[in-house]
């Protein structure tokens, strides 16, 4: 019988080895995927027990903080947003039942204090409780408030303001706003509202026809590629037959032998249409891509909450240089061109920064619970779409727009402003209730023109007015607020 007993013991060894194997699988090898399962609430519940760090505005205003509820093993933290709806975008929310969004989601690791496996083992040995870091943003509370106030009067829309030399995002406002404190109570209402879509960040997700603001990109491509110089004359008739449909100037005005300055100041459609055709697909798309079109902007927000800009086909797919497009209409910002306010702000910022486009960043620094700065934003360049010389030539032309052209409402007394208006007609837009007179109004620009401190894109949906009437004043108010705060 002894032989069988030994074999039986062998079987027990095998069975227990299987147990060790399965335990290893769950506890170590498959642990990461198990933590990601929807049914697994543990990661969220544990995060809830960690004191999540605060989010602060550039001046120290508390945008988000965590307050304790209960005590002992029932202790948990609940997120509070003292400023209410002012920072619903771009900060987002973080609640156990509803997950997190926007800035809260992107900076989660810093906010909950997730560190490397090694240092967390050290902390465990020391008995230290995990605690989150504060994240200080670049957001300017006064300017953010100004942007939202102006938008609430003008209509749904967005404002993005970026410091050109660093890419610091000073304003990212989206109207209608929402109060993140209400998310636990009104989540279904907020998330199912198809008309207002308050949880949708129009500043980074909204894709709108750019209208004439896109002429800045066309002009940049023309100058930088050498197809034109600031002195190159192009005859721009009041109406031009393109692909079987007439392309017309406002009021059918003729601009014989016009140069860039005159064409941009008066936003001459037939001038830029012809420039687009001269550039050709390859060149125009190359410069668009240099500015960041066709890519997700490198901002510190979740990739799913930042949209790409570019020319889309009817299925919503991005088109490239090899796809057939009506170049003359792309060049003036029509033809299924859709852009985000963030992307247009980046175009303005690149021109303001001597042709260098910086990566847009909302965060500025991370401060640990002991008050030490552990990380600081190190501004980095995304690309250099144009040379400093081209940037200067464009700036001159854009100054003309504000001083004597279509964008005079953007003028700030005593400050030189460079900018461009845009008014894209969006008749029958369902989001606007299908009205025939609806426009997408734009203004992009920067100030002061000779020493830019801020680059801004402002846009208003579903308005019957023009860019200069509704968007330029928002630009002016936000720029003035920021310049006064300097």
């Amino acid at each position, binding site marked *: *019988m*002894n*032989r*069988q*007993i*030994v074999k*039986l*013991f062998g079987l*027990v*060894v095998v*069975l*227990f080895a*299987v*147990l*060790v194997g*399965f*335990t*290893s699988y*769950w*506890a*170590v090898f*498959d*642990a990461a995927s*198990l*933590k990601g*399962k*929807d*049914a*697994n*609430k*543990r990661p969220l*519940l*544990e995060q*809830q*027990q960690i004191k999540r760090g605060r989010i602060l505005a550039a001046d120290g205003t508390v945008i988000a903080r965590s307050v304790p*509820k*209960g005590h002992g*093993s*029932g*202790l*948990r933290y609940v997120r509070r947003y003292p400023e209410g709806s002012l920072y619903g975008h771009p900060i987002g929310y973080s609640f156990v039942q509803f997950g997190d969004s926007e800035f809260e989601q992107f900076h989660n690791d810093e906010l909950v204090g997730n560190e490397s496996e090694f240092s967390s*083992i050290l902390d*465990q040995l020391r*008995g230290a409780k995990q605690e989150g870091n504060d994240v200080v943003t670049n957001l300017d509370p006064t300017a953010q408030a100004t942007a939202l106030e102006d938008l609430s009067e003008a209509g749904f829309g967005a404002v993005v303001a970026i410091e050109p030399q660093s890419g610091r995002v000073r304003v990212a406002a989206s109207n209608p706003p929402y109060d993140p404190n209400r998310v636990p109570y009104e989540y279904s209402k907020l998330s199912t509202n198809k008309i207002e879509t308050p949880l949708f960040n129009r500043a980074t997700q909204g894709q709108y026809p750019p209208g004439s603001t896109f002429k800045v990109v066309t002009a940049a491509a023309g100058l930088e590629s050498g197809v034109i110089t600031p002195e190159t004359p192009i005859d721009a008739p009041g109406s031009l037959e393109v692909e079987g449909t007439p392309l017309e100037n406002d009021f059918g005005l003729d601009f014989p032998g016009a140069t860039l300055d005159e064409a941009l100041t008066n936003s001459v459609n037939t001038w830029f249409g012809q420039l687009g055709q001269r550039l050709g697909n390859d060149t125009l798309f190359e410069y668009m891509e240099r500015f960041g079109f066709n890519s997700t902007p490198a901002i510190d927000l979740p990739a799913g909450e930042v949209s790409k800009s570019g020319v889309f086909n009817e299925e919503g797919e991005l088109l490239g240089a090899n796809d057939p497009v009506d170049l003359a209409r792309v060049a003036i910002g029509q033809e299924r061109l859709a852009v985000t306010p963030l992307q247009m702000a980046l175009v303005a910022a690149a021109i303001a920064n001597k042709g260098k486009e910086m990566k847009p960043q909302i965060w500025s620094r991370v401060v640990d619970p002991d008050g030490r700065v552990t990380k600081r934003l190190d501004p980095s360049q995304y690309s250099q779409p144009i040379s400093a010389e081209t940037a200067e030539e464009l700036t001159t032309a854009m100054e003309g727009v504000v001083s004597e052209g279509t964008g005079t409402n953007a003028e700030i007394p005593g400050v030189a402003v460079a900018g461009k208006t845009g008014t894209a007609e969006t008749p029958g837009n369902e989001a606007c209730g299908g009205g025939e007179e609806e426009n997408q109004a734009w203004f992009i620009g920067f100030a002061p023109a000779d020493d830019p401190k801020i680059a801004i894109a402002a846009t208003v949906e579903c308005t019957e007015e023009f860019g200069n009437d509704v968007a330029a004043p928002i630009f002016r108010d936000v720029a003035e607020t920021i310049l006064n705060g300097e």
Partner: protein
Amino acid sequence: MSARNRELFALVPVAMLLTAGFAAVFAQESSQLDNLSLIYGAYFFAVCLATHIYLRMRLPDADPYLFPLAALLMAFGLVMIYRIDADLARDQANWFVLGLVLFALTIQFLRDYDVLERYRYTIAVVGLLLLLAPRLPGIGEQVNGAYLGVKAGPLAFQPAEFSKICLVVFLASYLREHREVLIVGARRVLGVTLPPLKHFGPMLVVWGASMFMLVFIRDLGSSLMFFAAFLALLYVATGRFSFVVIGMAMFLVGAWFFAATVPHVHDRVEIWLDPYAHPQASGYQILQSIFSQADGGLFGKGFGQALITVPGTDNALLPAAQTDTIYSLIVNELGLFGACAVILTYLLIAARGFKIALLSADGFSKLLATGLTAVFSIQAFVIIGGVTRVIPLTGVTLPFISYGGSSIVANFVLLALLLLVSDRARREAGVGARSGDLVLGKT
């Protein structure tokens, strides 16, 4: 060093481990060290010491490692249960003492355990009655669709825990007497060696009892445990692997049939195969058990760090943490390393148990030691395998660790029987207290 001195020395680190465990839990709960952990450690050591002295008097030659290993598991369990609920730990400590009293009584009155052979049919009937008890009107109790408990006034217990010992005693005795006939009388039919029907009758009774448990008690875990122990004994007694294959086939056919017809059994299997089908309902326990393990990683989160309920509420995040899923809690707090320590402890107990069987001279002792060790090991496998999704999860306790009086008392009785067999075997083999380490090392 004599066997009993080894035992004494082995108990010291166990008591220290318990003290350290309590200290860790106190430090976690109140952020300070408390001498209470020392007092608990001292109590624990005193109880173990008393048992040790009793063993020294009664069973001087018995295996020196089994009791310290069981005490180690108890220490693990007490700390984990204290961490869940101090009141439960107090109960558990009382069960521990009561278990040791029965342990001592078993040793006291079954010194000559051959007497068990004489009453084997009585014992078998008692075992069956115990199994049947949960279905008896008035005292039966249904938990989660299974009839596991008996409740008579203030006394509530799980008869299956005791029934398993009765079954092993009966089988060991019966097989000791009939093993020759079973081997010699076997006939080959169509190339398969079949046992003689006449002597196989009582074996069929065991199969029937297992199936009965499956259907009427709806206790998949115990059924599996009983039948596996039966097959292990049958194999050791006859040396015929074909009997095991036939037995296994019979069990599988029966289990498959009942899995298809008895909803409770069917559900358990369905949940095992696809727990994500109903993650908030039927699959909740096994999923939470696995999620809890995923949180543990290599080193675990530390004592008192695991989430057992949803913070701020009483909603269980790890259902039955003190009984069924205590292993998952151990993985969560002590990590893969802690879990391996637990499994290794069970493996060492199994090794010592089978060694006793190897050393025993007479058939009954051999089979008894084999059966007791097998049923104990399989019980550990069934519940750990259940919470790690190796097999369907069923409500069996983790021996010496899970909260529950029946389990602890029954397992201490089982341990007492093993030590009784061991004492005689080692004395007869001359490896007891009076001979040195050398011989022991060889056995």
